[in-house]
Structure formats: C-alpha cells, structure tokens
C-alpha cells in the first residue's frame, strides 16, 4: 500500500468534479445558517456526523468488497432528497472516470458498465481507493474529510471568508474526522457480517430540504 496514493485521491484538485458543488453550503448561506467561520464549523460538524458518517461507511464497505449493487441501494435509501441522489450519482460517475483513468482496473470497468449513469459517489470512492491499493480506513478518511472540505472551500467563494479561517475550521475538525472514519470502518465490518441493514443511517433533514430548494434556484454559483 502506498501512503502517497491516499494523498492523490484526497487532494482537492483530484479532477472528479467536486469543485462545482458546495455540499449544501450555498443553500445554508442563503438561509442565513452560515455567516462566518463559527457557523461554518457548526455546519461542517453537523454534516460530518450525518452525511459524512454514512458516506465514509459506504466507502469503507466498498473497499471491504461488499456488493456494489447492495451498497448503491442502501445509499439511495439513506438519501431522501431526489436532488441529492441525482448529485451523488453524477459525482459518482465523474469520480469513476477519473479513477479509471488514474488507477485502471477491471473491477472499476465492470462497475462503470453496471452503472453507466453513475453509482453513489462514496462507494465509487471506496472502489477507487481499492484500485489504488488503499484500505477501508483510508477510504473512510477520504469520504469523511470530503464531507467537510467541500463546504469549507465553497464558503470561501460564497462569503469571501478568509481562507485561513476556513482552513482553521478543517484543522479543528480533524480529530472528529478521525473518529468518524474509525466508526465508519467498524460499521463497514458489521456490514460484511450482517448485511447493509446495519450501515449507519444518520441524516440531516436541513441538508436534504436545502438541496431540494437549491435545485430549483434560477441563479446559483454551485451545482449543489
């Protein structure tokens, strides 16, 4: 296993389409829920322990070899908002392209064939990690970190927030990201033994509702 492969996959510049998405931050900014560094931190913390935990568990389970079709259905069931399900598949498709180009593998090709319009992004992330020779904990870290790094960089653009402040938020959340990744791997091991029913189903209703509203805006900076 190569440690540096994790850096390649986790790099915000990894070309998998994430830059056009705010992880719900644009809707939260408009609703007045994010106004600066402190409220960004609260937003990210909430996202990390809900959507982030679910994503990290899906990613870890994919690395452990749980069937992709089952994970994809479980991800659908844990994503009430149709807009967010569409975004997850779109990003999954884009990540699949980048991963296949970066770490060619028969397994990725097979899943690309099975899901031509995209599987949920976190499980594609898990498969990409697997193709890169990484482990379940690596994939969980990636997914958990992405759940907060996306909103943080979007808020730098949306509010002209001081980038040092946004990065400080991420640094303060780092120990919690570690804990979420650990929990996710534990959950993923449970899935191997007991099936996808035991995957975490933590949800953030405001993220789901906000995404539905956002999808209908005529003017917006981010695609979600």
């Amino acid at each position: 296993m190569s440690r540096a492969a994790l850096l390649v996959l986790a790099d915000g510049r990894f070309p998998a389409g994430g830059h056009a998405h705010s992880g719900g931050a644009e809707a939260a900014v408009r609703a007045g829920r994010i106004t600066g560094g402190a409220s960004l931190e609260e937003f990210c913390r909430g996202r990390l322990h809900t959507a982030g935990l679910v994503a990290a568990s899906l990613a870890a389970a994919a690395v452990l070899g749980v069937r992709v079709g089952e994970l994809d259905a479980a991800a659908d069931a844990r994503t009430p908002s149709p807009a967010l399900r569409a975004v997850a598949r779109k990003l999954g498709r884009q990540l699949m392209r980048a991963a296949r180009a970066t770490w060619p593998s028969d397994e990725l090709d097979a899943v690309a064939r099975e899901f031509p319009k995209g599987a949920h992004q976190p499980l594609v992330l898990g498969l990409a990690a697997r193709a890169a020779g990484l482990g379940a904990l690596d994939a969980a870290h990636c997914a958990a970190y992405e759940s907060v790094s996306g909103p943080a960089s979007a808020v730098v653009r949306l509010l002209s927030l001081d980038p040092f402040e946004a990065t400080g938020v991420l640094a303060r959340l780092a120990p919690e990201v570690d804990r979420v990744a650990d929990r996710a791997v534990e959950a993923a091991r449970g899935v191997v033994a007991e099936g996808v029913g035991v995957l975490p189903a933590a949800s953030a209703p405001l993220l789901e509702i906000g995404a539905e509203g956002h999808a209908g805006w005529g003017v917006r900076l981010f695609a979600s």
Partner: protein
Amino acid sequence: MHLDHSHDTPSALGADARRPDGSRRALRIGLGGPVGSGKTATVAALCRALRQELSLAVVTNDIYTREDAEFLLREAVLPPERITAVETGACPHTAIRDDISANLEAVEDLEDEVGPLDLILVESGGDNLTATFSKGLVDAQIFVIDVAGGDDIPRKGGPGVTTADLLVVNKTDLAPYVGSDLGRMAADAKAQRAELPVVFQSLRTGDGVKDVAAWVRAQLAVWTA
C-alpha cells in the same frame, strides 16, 4: 441509448478519438474569452452557418445562470435537445481546464442522446486572458476578444490570445465609437501569434462570420480525414 452505454463496453475516459463502439466521436471546439466578448453570439452564428450541412450540438458553461443556454434556445439556433448547460461552481476555467469531468460527461451524453454528431461547440463561461481549454476536452479552441475591451489586449498576450488555434477579434463595428485601432490590433496579434490565424468579426454587419465558419470546416476536414 447508444452502443456506448451497452453492457459490452464501459464508457470512454477522455479525449480518445474513437468511441467505445469504434465509431469516430464528434470534433470538439472550445470557445473561450473575456466576459461579454461575443462567445455566445459567435456560437449562434456558427450554428446558423453550419446546421444545414453538419450534425451539431452545444455545451454552455454559465457561471451562475443558465443565460447562455437560454439565449441559444430562445434564438432557436438548434433544437433544445442539442444544447446542454454545465454548472461550473464559480470557476469557469476550472471546468474547462483543471477538472473537465462535468464537460466530458456533457459532450458524451449529447453524442449518446442526439448523435451521431459531427461537431460539438463548448462555450466557456467568460473568464480572464489566461483561461484555455484542456486538450482532454477539446480538439481545437477559439479565443474571442472584442475591440471594446481595449485595443491593447492582443499586445498584452496571455495564453488565450497567444496559443488559441483561432483568435477572433469581435465587434469591429464598435471600433470607431470606442477609439480602437484595428490596424494596431492586427499587428500586435500577428506579433504574438506568428502564423496562427486571426479573424476580425462583426456580428452586427456579418463581417468575418464566413471566415470563422470556414476555419471550423477546415478543422473538421482534418478531423475526418
């Protein structure tokens, strides 16, 4: 659904000239340049000039609205299913250069859904003079500037002006009103670009429109040769 998405072959990865079913994909031409220089108007003019002879589609990259796509729809330059808008997350150059995933998906979906296509025009959101398209996304690029943005832009150069396969200096009809010296712009462009072509265009008078269309036809002839 096209063969591309059959269960035999996974979808394409990037700029490969062949689609997974072995057929040649459409030629992709990018149009970039500063805000308001006339990119959408040039796309519309190209569609009108070429749509009788070629199977065309357009991808727009609006920065925070769907205005470019809506303008093209309103003007009915192509049927609506041939026009797709990509959302760029406040960063147009990222979407055409550093992370082209959403644009690649858009061009491939167009080929699947309305193909076969000869030509796909990809319009960037208005950006700065350094914004160029990735070779992973387009086969050739047009950089559109206008005379009203200042006649010193060709002299300033930058990747768009210097390296684009075609430089279009648009809105020449406005030159007398904004005091732009077209001769100087031509000389500076020549100095920056050596043998690379430049077209002076006005979409008001129609000057140059034919030359841009002829350049596109020539690109296509090379592509299909």
